[in-house]
């Protein structure tokens, strides 16, 4: 038997082969196809008509309204309406109407199963790699062909392993882990590759935090990011993981394209400086830089774990600059309400908005004006990502974001922990 990495095993299973090797091109059976209001019906309805309008398997299709809700103008409202009408006309069983970001819903609702192939019309589809799925992003037209055929062609990527040694210190989050990878290896090291995250610091991460590593794989250029399910996460994913002999881990002797070891003790709180995700420096190098506001939200930075981390810093403290929070999903708000996080955040002066992509998609709910300076937990800091191209968007962990909100300046969270 050929030894394979987890990503290779999942592709082999999906392609109905005993084994695959990096560079092989295969047609693979898709287990789950996902899209949202931006990439979904408005872009694909016409294409589906060319194929007779028939869907391959409505049970395996997920549609979420997350980008354009709450609608900021008439154009947005029309897109939301078109999306909802399309889903209703087909009685789509997995339709999420303005209750959260597609990527987070795939994990929260237990739709992305370990060892399966998930294809989504959005670059951050990779987030589902947190559940041990092979999750890849595509464009809308390609997703339309998947909705018709249930298949996608894949070139088997070589796998790069990132091994995090030692426990995660309490002043760091998975966002710092991902930024440390980007700092060391830069934003294009994994183009056309898979990135697998392993090691003691990863084993201890809850699903929300694993989602950060998988999510940020796209910013490393990767085809997919994957965290082999383990510990409490494996327990949580258990029933789905045990189904039909799906792969949960790679072979011990599998060949990696490259391996990098990162000792957590050597990592400090980090900030990604505009205009690039890999322009990463220690927070201490920017300490004191004045901010216009702080934003906590998006698929990568608006999860329950992110809100809890922010609350650790904000408990008993006041935000000195506007602190806007966009929870990733409605359930994040429920959880934050249940465990007291929401009360802490509101008491600090934070504003909590409707769940969804929020400002991170660059469409509404708090875009940045010319030269406005913001620190956010969002996905990307590219020029124009979240408003005016001249705005300065710094990326950091929710701990650093909360500490910076308290002082109104970029601040090391260790000062408050």
């Amino acid at each position, binding site marked *: 038997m050929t030894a394979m990495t987890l990503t290779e095993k999942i592709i082999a299973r999906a392609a109905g082969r005993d084994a695959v090797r990096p560079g092989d*091109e295969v047609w693979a059976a898709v287990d789950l196809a996902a899209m949202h209001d*931006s*990439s979904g019906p408005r*872009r694909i309805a016409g*294409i589906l008509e*060319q*194929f007779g309008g028939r869907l391959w398997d409505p049970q395996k299709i997920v549609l979420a309204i997350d*980008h*354009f809700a709450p609608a900021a*103008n008439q*154009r*947005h409202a029309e*897109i939301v309406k078109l999306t909802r009408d399309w889903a209703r006309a087909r009685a789509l069983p997995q339709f999420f109407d303005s209750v959260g970001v597609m990527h987070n819903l795939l994990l929260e609702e237990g739709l992305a199963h370990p060892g399966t192939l998930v294809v989504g*019309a*959005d*670059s951050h*589809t990779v987030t589902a790699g947190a559940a041990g799925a092979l999750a890849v*992003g*595509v*464009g*809308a*037209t*390609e997703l*339309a*062909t998947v909705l*018709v*055929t249930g298949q996608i*062609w894949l*070139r088997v990527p070589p796998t790069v392993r990132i091994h995090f040694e030692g426990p995660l210190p309490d002043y760091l989050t998975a966002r710092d882990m991902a930024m440390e990878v980007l700092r060391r290896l830069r*934003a*294009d090291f994994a*183009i*056309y590759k898979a990135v697998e995250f392993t090691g003691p610091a990863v084993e201890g991460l809850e699903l929300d935090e694993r989602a950060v590593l998988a999510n940020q794989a*796209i*910013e490393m*250029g990767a*085809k997919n990011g994957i965290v082999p399910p383990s510990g409490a996460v494996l327990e949580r994913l258990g029933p789905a993981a045990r189904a039909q002999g799906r792969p949960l881990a790679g072979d011990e002797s599998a060949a990696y394209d490259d391996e990098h070891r990162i000792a957590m003790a050597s990592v400090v709180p980090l900030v990604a400086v505009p205009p*690039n995700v890999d322009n990463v420096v220690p927070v201490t190098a920017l300490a004191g830089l004045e901010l216009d506001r702080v934003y906590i939200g998006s698929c990568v930075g608006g999860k329950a774990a992110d809100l809890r981390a922010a609350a650790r810093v904000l408990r008993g403290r006041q935000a000195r600059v506007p602190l806007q929070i966009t929870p990733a999903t409605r359930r994040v708000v429920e959880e934050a309400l249940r465990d007291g996080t929401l009360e802490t955040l509101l008491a600090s002066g934070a504003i909590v908005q409707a769940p969804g992509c929020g400002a991170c*998609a*660059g*469409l509404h709910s708090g875009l940045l004006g010319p030269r406005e300076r913001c620190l956010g937990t969002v996905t*990307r800091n*590219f*020029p*124009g*990502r*979240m408003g005016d*191209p001249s705005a300065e968007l710094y990326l950091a962990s929710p701990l650093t974001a909360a500490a910076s909100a308290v002082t109104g300046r970029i601040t090391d969270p260790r000062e408050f922990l």
Partner: protein
Amino acid sequence: MSGVYEGRAWVFGDHVSTDQILPGAYLDRPMEEVGTYAMAGLDPTFRSRVQPGDIVVAGVNFGCGSSREAAVMALKQAGVAAVVARSFGRIFFRNAINNGFPAAIVADTRAIRAGDRLRLDIPSRALVHLRTGETTPLLNLTGTSLEILEAGGIVPFTLRRLGAAR
């Protein structure tokens, strides 16, 4: 499709994101209109100066970031014939091929200057830099991606594939 494209070079740097090629502010527009905003986040004069048949040249990781297909469509509608780079964001690359838009990888693009004439010759697997006469081999556009490109995109490709299966 002949697969040979000759045109003027527009030169951009490394890590040009789809947020720059087609900013989020225009994501709510119908796909037929996005060409109006091509490169709006990087060079607001691009749209008025680009000529049909021009070739966009970039460094590493062109089209990184968002999966928005409108980034490819904006360049295509603006008249750009092809993109040549040292590497692509993989979703941008797939979106390009899926829409019959050539996205070619060569080892180095740094000698190419704005306005230089280039010939991208896919059948010969070469990029010819007509100012210097230098010929550089293409490093991608093989296998399935080439088949999809030659079919004119993933929709005609899939229609044919389903027809063949029947």
